[in-house]
């Protein structure tokens, strides 16, 4: 792989990651949110493949394939299934309005670029320069967890945060050992499945999945 191709592929995949994260912020359709998550999974797998092949690691195919299957197929399928079982396709409640949400997202992306600079110091390799994208994903995921009221969009926020962490780990490291990678992916998949089951039970128990309405327990 020539350095130009590498650079272009890196820019495309990280650009797609950031774009799908920012687009999550507006819009209330759950199907669209899950669709964006599929795109993000594909972009992440592409990024892993690019970084791995450029570093000359054959296991990159395995890891990228695994990520593609889990993040772009199984997880979205499981979420879509939960959404169907619940019968919710649109989210009603957000704790802030869309404009504030967008401005917050823009601010967080700027913040991600601002904090990554000093953390990265003077590492000049190309992959490290894309690390702010990972931090943006983490912060945007957090933002979504904070401001969205529906259980299913909280789950989307959690997965975005996880994608961000995966991006950072691949860009700074060129990936983790395969055992750890497998374990981490499996863990996140199990969390998604568990939260899916809890959501369905929540719907059955109380007729909605609005997290801000969970007020049974407090002091």
């Amino acid at each position, binding site marked *: 792989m020539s350095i130009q191709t590498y650079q272009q592929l890196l820019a495309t995949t990280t650009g797609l990651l950031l774009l799908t994260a920012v687009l999550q912020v507006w819009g209330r359709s759950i199907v669209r949110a899950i669709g964006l998550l599929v795109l993000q999974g594909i972009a992440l797998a592409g990024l892993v493949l690019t970084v791995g092949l450029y570093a000359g690691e054959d296991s990159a195919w395995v890891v990228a394939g695994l990520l593609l299957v889990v993040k772009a197929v199984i997880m979205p399928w499981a979420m879509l299934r939960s959404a169907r079982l619940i019968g919710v396709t649109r989210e009603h409640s957000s704790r802030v309005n869309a404009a504030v949400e967008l401005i917050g997202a823009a601010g967080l992306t700027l913040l991600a670029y601002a904090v990554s600079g*000093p*953390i990265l*110091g003077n590492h000049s390799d190309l992959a490290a320069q894309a690390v702010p994208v990972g931090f943006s994903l*983490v912060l945007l995921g*957090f933002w979504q*967890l904070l401001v969205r009221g529906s*259980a299913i969009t*909280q789950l989307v926020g*959690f997965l975005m*945060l*996880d994608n961000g*962490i995966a991006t*950072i*780990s691949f860009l*700074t*490291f060129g990936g*983790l*050992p395969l*055992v*750890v990678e497998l*374990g*981490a992916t499996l*863990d*996140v998949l*199990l*969390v998604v499945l*568990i*939260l899916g089951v*809890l959501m369905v*039970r*929540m719907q059955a*128990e*109380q007729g909605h999945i609005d*997290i801000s309405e*969970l007020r*049974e*327990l407090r*002091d």
Partner: protein
Amino acid sequence: MAILIWVPLVLPLLLAAVSIVLRSRAWTLWLPVSAAAVLLGVGVTLVVSVSSGGPLVTAGGLIRVDALSAWMLTVVGAVAVVALWGGIPHRTHRNRNIGSFASLLCLFLSAMSLAVVADNLGLMWVAVELTTITTAFLVGSRGGRGALEAAWKYVVLGSVGVAIAFLGLILLSAASRTTGEPTLSWVALLAHAGGLDPTLARAGAALAVLGFATKAGLAPVHSWLPDAHSQAPATVSGLMSGVLLSVAFYAILRVQAIADAALGPELMRGLLTAAGLLSLAVTAGLVITQKDFKRLLAYSSIEHMGLLALGAAAGGPLAIAAVLLHMLGHGLVKSSMFVLAGRILGYTGSHDIADVRNLLRRRPDLGGPFLLGAAALLGFPPFVTFFTEVAIIVAGFQRGLGWQMLLACALLLVVFAGIARNVLAMTVGADPDPDAARTSPAPPDLPARFRQIPIGIALGVTAVIGFAAWPLAAPLLDAVTALGGAR
């Protein structure tokens, strides 16, 4: 000897499979108990073997048992025996889900064992996340709105917190690029700590501690804890409070050792002191007016985690040895207390402190140990918690945390008053209906005597171990050395 490490990792998996297959049999509930007993045995054997022969390594360096890991395995085993044995429900309270309940408990034990023996940041993270996954359904198993809400908060906050810790671990590991190939091994990171990139190490250590603090229930990221502990079945609350919090705190100790060696102690000391004092303050603010006795115990766990954080902030052999011993003492007592709370709940049918009165007369089998356990939690001598709390505070004064420790003592007094007031009201408080106490027939769920044994053992051990701690001194000091010695 290294083969022994695999026993607590693999045996629970086999037992989990057995309990799934034989799910209708009531005795499957004994499988987790036996797994815990084996874990305790392996832990003690490893403590002895490591203290004479040095750390054991297996699985190509992914798994390594040093004195600290062996100690943690022992603590997990001992506390799990008490929580699981004591928590076996009475025959009349058993339901059809016994098998899956037992198998999740086995998997939980295996995940905790893996977390403390992994010498790889990534693998340890996977194990800690697995503890969240295995306990998710256990927390929600009682059903109903409250349990669902608690389980949701627990899984979301736990996973997000631990994800942040993962980010921190990655940055910490990336900090080792300056010393050659980046490494994920605790030992290698500690050995090369001097050469770590300081900016990355600082960011990584801070994020990792923040993340694991979520799992350890330290304020201000504790909000899942009272909900989960009050809604989960007694056994699960006991296990989570007694050992899961300590396992998360173990990760903090490991990160602290690396950060202290790389950056000096100021960063971790600041973070841990703040978290410790804040945890004590949160507890002090909420125990006095607490109306739910399981939440009362949950807040007491936050308080004890705060104490551990203060001990770790003080640092040095005395404080760290006290922290490790406190994990054992608090774990044994707290798991017994949650088991007793579960039985009280079965007796009164209510979580409310106000509904439990004169327990010492009405049900001496519950009231007696509950009162003794509360005394241990509050740090009365002769219980070991007294010695460890004093050691932590003395060490803090010695190492320049004077006003922080004074503030901690003041907050501990408030907590003391709050917990004592509520526990006394439950055990010896004025009985609204004194005749009922005398005339009520023996309750149908009077526990068989062997269900009292684990509680008795736990309280007995906690009472004598403070005096008979001399055999423990060597392994505890070895464990301190494994954390980089006295700094």
